[in-house]
């Protein structure tokens, strides 16, 4: 992975967020406090704004810096969680180099693991983890099975989408929607949606660069 890929992915993510304003906003209005879109937009914008600063860094250093930036920019629940993700990823890349698919998978999993620890949450609690954990698991499995980039990307896009949709049927036991009990059922979790969108965007980006 090159830092330039991170930078173009960041731009693509920012655009995806902006294009999904009403979706993200209405999901968080329904079972949260309505600020998830604004939070994500602020975070994504801040990363795009640091392009110059990131360019010259190694991918792990860039990801770490992205994590720190998100930590001081987003706030709310999603801020520290997404920050943890990038910092967890950065650490694995730093320790293991950044050139093999299994390393990427391990890095992704490490990022998700830090979210898990920070949020004291797990799969099935109607959070972003319902997207991230299945994706991390599948990424690892496909990397181990030596799947090619195209297979991996397509699979992760699907898995993210399924995880996101699955949150619809769940009662929340973490985050702001946890107060809602049964009333949360029928609504997709906003954090799950934004993570699904980001995964989709990065995978598509990777697929394009493949062609």
């Amino acid at each position, binding site marked *: 992975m090159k830092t330039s890929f991170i930078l173009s992915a960041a731009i693509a993510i920012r655009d995806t967020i902006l294009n999904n304003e009403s979706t993200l906003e209405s999901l968080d209005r329904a079972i949260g406090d309505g*600020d998830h879109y604004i939070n994500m937009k602020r975070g994504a914008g801040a990363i795009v704004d640091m392009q110059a600063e990131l360019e010259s860094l190694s991918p792990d250093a860039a990801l770490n810096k992205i994590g720190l930036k998100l930590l001081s920019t987003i*706030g709310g629940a999603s801020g*520290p969680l997404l920050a943890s993700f990038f910092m967890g990823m950065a650490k694995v890349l730093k320790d293991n180099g950044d050139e093999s698919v299994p390393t990427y998978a391990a890095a992704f999993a490490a990022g998700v693991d830090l979210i898990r620890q920070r949020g004291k949450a797990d799969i099935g609690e109607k959070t972003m983890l319902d997207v991230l954990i299945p994706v991390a698991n599948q990424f690892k499995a496909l990397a181990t099975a030596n799947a090619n980039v195209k297979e991996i990307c397509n699979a992760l896009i699907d898995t993210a989408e399924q995880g996101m949709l699955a949150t619809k049927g769940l009662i929340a036991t973490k985050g*702001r*929607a946890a107060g809602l009990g049964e009333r949360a059922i029928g609504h997709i979790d906003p954090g799950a949606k934004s993570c699904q969108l980001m995964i989709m965007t990065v995978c598509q980006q990777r697929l394009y660069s493949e062609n």
Partner: protein
Amino acid sequence: MKKFINKIDDVLVESLSGFASAHSDLVSLNLNPNFLTRKKIATNKVAIISGGGSGHEPLHAGYIGYGMLDAACPGYVFTSPTPDQMLAAATLVHADNGILFIVKNYAGDVMNFEIAAEMLPFANGLPIKSDTVLTSDDCAVVNSTYTTGRRGVAGTVIVEKCVGSLAETGADLPACKALGDKVNSQTASIGVALTSCTVPAAGRPTFDMSDTELEMGVGIHGEPGRRRETMREADAIVRDCVEAIITDLKTRAILTSNTHEALLLINGFGATPLMELYLIYNTALKLFNQHGIKIARSLVGNYTTALDMAGASITLCLLDDEIKQHWDSPVHTAALRWGR
């Protein structure tokens, strides 16, 4: 959405600047990262720092000053502040006796303050001790091992007042933490919304509600509550709130004896006139009396708001001599002031 604002991105800083100017005798404002401290940093005491999303004014900056907070970190509207704000604030207040964070129990606030607390020892090379009181007085959310738990709402003001008072006496960090936890556990709140609030950046109401509905157990960010109900007369609404509070305090075995003294806080969410808040007070007082609870202290007004939401919350804090003493002690902040 009609609001007195200019550019949406400037709302927070313009409002904070206005606050700091209007209370320049009491507070100093730092921008980027955003935090406020007392004008005169207090020394030789545990520093009490709170913070949270904006839109709940006067919470928290309105409670900075003698007898209450040393600093407050405002996030964007309804979004918890970020760790760099807490670290910067902590670095500026006198921290020799340690820092107590008072944090409303929301995933975002908890995590951001937690990270700040973890980073604190490394922030300026000094071994700054810190601890955290999580407020969780909202009994609309039934606690369970499966959830992150109850939300912190208007009871936070009472925690901040009492802990702030104790800290002023020179009490140490564990004592402040213990009092904060005690006040929190003896407190229960529940809110009712008659209208939604509108987050400026969203530009439209967080939820839709018809003219014949109310939201029972609403959160201070417009989070949905226990259930959507039919609008009815104040006495009936207040009765349900009082019952919820009594049930909560009994279930948690906080309310055990037959008679008890308490502080009753009727809190407006921002768009409810004082006239209605006092009417609510009138009914709540009678109903609590019927439950053997003597209202020994009262507070009625907008103390923990939800932007422009029409609605109110009822908070009951069971008093003992210690809490009463710290509630009564002098306080001098923008929003709460007595005794000096």
